């Protein structure tokens, strides 16, 4: 195998297309990675970054596309082929065996007899050469997240890879660890290797990368050297080109303008003051968030995956207690979580029992099921849930009808406040409209509504006020898709935004 000189193209991808059912995850994506470089692969949620790298690592066979490795065309059939060629990948969710030691984890996938001493020596050797601190005899489950990640990296390096793909490596790390990892990535590439860094943190990408490729809806929309660009232009590319407003977007703007005329002046219903949420690993997911949601308004939140919105919404709906800061919320807050199968429904129970689930924790004595049957029947009618009756199991309903049921149930139970998370995920156009109508009606009836959606158009369409969440910090923004988009990517929004209680 010939070595590729620094600067020459190591991996080249051209015209990659792949559809999952009717969803086009990749739509002609291309990418060129040079030896000795850090290549940042950027894009919104669902832009196709991870899908493209799964193709490179042999986890997915793309329907179309040409891949070249060191100048010769190849087809990657499996991760072991990728590893044999020198391509390693560290997934966002670790693939370590928690009860095994570091050395055992790294020896997994090898051949022949396992010799603990040789395995440990190998780990010390690889980690030492790479400049990573790692105890080969520590059990993975006892390690902090940062060390687990180093274990994943060493596991890839131990297979002699020259191209390392890192999928959102800083997402789980505390800021100091993240900075340390980025410095390591730089050093590793300077030693003649190549790194593909999948991220939606613009700042990280610009700080460490040589080259930048931006994907939008499965297509490569920007390829540039990092030094030739800035946050604003990369953010524009990630959002699909700021100047590429389609007719429907213009409509959205009009709706927005009309909405603005509505007077919003109810009393505050949901109040957060300097609220911080810290997990068991010491990572802050919400950092000193301050927010007031008034009766009769919809507050929209824009954020990329893992920016802390998951925790923020659960604090607002009373499902999670803040680590510090003060919170004032009504006794019962309606909550529509994004994963309704996991967090909202009993799929094998009849609909009337699903209605009764709301508030089940505080109920006493005998349940009047006939009352719940009647209430469910009324709910099906009122929220246009297409089901043959209150007796059918929730599993038999379509996603849209399940969502309407959950939304209806929460609206019936909580009169003051509603928190919704990705409410139209997996729904078709008609169902999405129905869900939007119900949210507007709740707002007009005087409820305080908080909406998070990974679809910025949806946020801007429904919300009266919008906030961007980036890296745990909540910032109010003007109601403009592009300004909000840049803010949630950590970009500067200048006069357009007001930082509230954030120390950044």
């Amino acid at each position, binding site marked *: 195998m010939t070595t590729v000189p620094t600067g020459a193209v190591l991996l080249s991808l051209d015209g990659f297309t792949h559809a999952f059912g009717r969803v086009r995850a990749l739509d002609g994506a291309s990418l060129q990675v040079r030896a000795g470089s850090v290549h940042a692969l950027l894009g919104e949620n669902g832009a196709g970054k991870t899908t493209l790298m799964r193709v490179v690592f042999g986890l997915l066979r793309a329907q179309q596309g040409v891949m070249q490795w060191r100048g010769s065309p190849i087809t990657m059939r499996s991760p072991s082929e990728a590893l044999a060629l020198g391509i390693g990948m560290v997934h966002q969710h670790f693939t370590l065996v928690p009860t095994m030691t570091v050395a055992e984890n790294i020896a997994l996938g090898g051949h022949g007899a396992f010799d603990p001493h040789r395995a440990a020596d190998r780990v010390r050797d690889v980690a030492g050469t790479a400049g990573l601190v790692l105890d080969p005899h520590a059990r993975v489950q006892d390690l902090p997240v940062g060390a687990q990640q180093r274990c994943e990296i060493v596991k890839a390096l131990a297979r002699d890879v020259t191209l390392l793909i890192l999928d959102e490596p800083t997402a789980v790390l505390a800021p100091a660890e993240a900075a340390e990892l980025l410095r390591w990535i730089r050093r590793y590439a300077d030693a003649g290797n190549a790194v593909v860094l999948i991220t939606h943190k613009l700042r990280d990408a610009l700080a460490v990368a040589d080259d930048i490729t931006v994907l939008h809806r499965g297509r490569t929309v920007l390829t540039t050297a990092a030094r030739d660009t800035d946050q604003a232009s990369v953010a524009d590319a990630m959002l699909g080109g700021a100047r590429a407003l389609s007719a429907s977007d213009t409509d959205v703007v009009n709706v927005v303008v009309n909405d603005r005329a509505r007077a919003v002046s109810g009393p505050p219903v949901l109040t957060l003051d300097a609220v911080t949420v810290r997990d068991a690993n010491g990572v802050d997911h919400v950092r000193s968030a301050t927010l007031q949601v008034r009766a009769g308004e919809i507050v929209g939140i824009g954020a990329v995956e893992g920016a802390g919105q998951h925790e923020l919404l659960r604090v607002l709906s009373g499902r999670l207690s803040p680590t510090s800061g003060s919170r004032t919320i009504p006794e019962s807050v309606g909550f529509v979580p994004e994963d309704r199968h996991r967090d909202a*429904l009993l799929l094998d129970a009849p609909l009337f029992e699903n209605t009764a689930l709301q508030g089940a924790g505080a109920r006493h004595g005998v349940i009047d099921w006939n009352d719940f049957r009647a209430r469910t029947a009324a709910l099906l009618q009122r929220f246009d849930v297409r089901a043959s009756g209150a007796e059918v199991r929730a599993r038999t309903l379509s996603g849209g009808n399940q969502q309407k049921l959950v939304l209806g149930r929460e609206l019936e139970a909580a009169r003051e406040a509603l928190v919704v998370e990705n409410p139209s995920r997996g729904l078709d156009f008609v169902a999405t409209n129905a869900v939007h109508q119900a949210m507007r009606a709740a707002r007009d009836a005087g409820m305080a509504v908080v909406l998070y959606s990974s679809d910025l158009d949806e946020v801007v369409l429904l919300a009266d006020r919008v906030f961007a969440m980036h890296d745990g910090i909540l910032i109010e923004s003007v109601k403009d898709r592009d300004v909000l988009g840049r803010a949630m990517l950590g970009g500067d929004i200048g006069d357009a935004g007001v930082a509230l209680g954030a120390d950044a």
Partner: protein
Amino acid sequence: MTALRAFAATTVRVVVLLAIALAMLAALLIATGHDVVPALSAMVRGAFGSYYAITSATIVRMVPLALAGLAVSVAFRAGILNIGAEGQLLVGAAAATAISGTLVGVPWSIGIPVMLLAGAIAGGAWAAIAGALRLRFGVLEVISTIMLNFVAQYLTGWLVRGPLQEPTQVNPQSATLVPELHMPVLLEGTRLHAGVLLVVVVAIGVWWWLRSTASGFRLRAVGATPTAAASAGGIDVPRTMFGAFLVSGLLAGLAGSVEYTGITYALYENFSPGYGYTAIAVALLARLHPLGVLATALLFGALQAGANAMQRDAGVPSVVVSVVEALLILLVMAADRWRPSRADETGT
């Protein structure tokens, strides 16, 4: 109505399963070189062949199987794999035995409830150990309850050689319960005792509790989808699970004390012929439905009564029937997996 339908559906299942069981048994008998007809007829006679067989063999075995089966059903409904009904049953019997010594001269109307209650409480406490291990330290109850079964078994062995041994100290067993404290016999000349009425009442009670009460609904919700129960229902999941451990253990403990006061009148080492393990099959065959448990317990009661008769009268080892029981469970679980329509599982 729905309850009746569920009960009818289970009964149909039981009849079908009985036919399959007999067919498998016949095949097994041929394979092991036994004469099919005399063996099977001995078995049927032993289970249903006479008034005495039905009342004193089949139904008498159904009682502990049904109570322990209810225990397993409650736990499984909450998503708890309590394999420890056997141990909870033994501890319940031991507690009833221990307290019976203090009940000399007490009228039966007080003495029997006290013994039954003691057994139930002991069974609940035994299950609470596994519950605490699970909820405090994350020890899987599948492991801990099996281990506690061994502990209970050896504990019983020690008790009947030590503190609870009969005064003559000849055999490793407890003193026989005074006749005044025996569970009333329902039909003169048989072993059919009032425990069978108790079982029916308890089954209906458990069914009603799961179906109609707020706490029963919480238990089912936690068993169905714990994340949704916590998030959408605001249900305290660990607390609900601990409650399910307690109730499950209580029922299994009651099975032990009913067996002691109604049938054995003494505690000894092999007090239970694996009722607590067979109860898992009883519960699964009934698809965890409390009323269905009555029917499946009767099926297993008949199988075991018949197996004894077959061994006695036709010289066929009764373990052949155990093989059939195991095959039945596998069959039912595979069938459930294959056809996942479980509308009758919601307890309504």
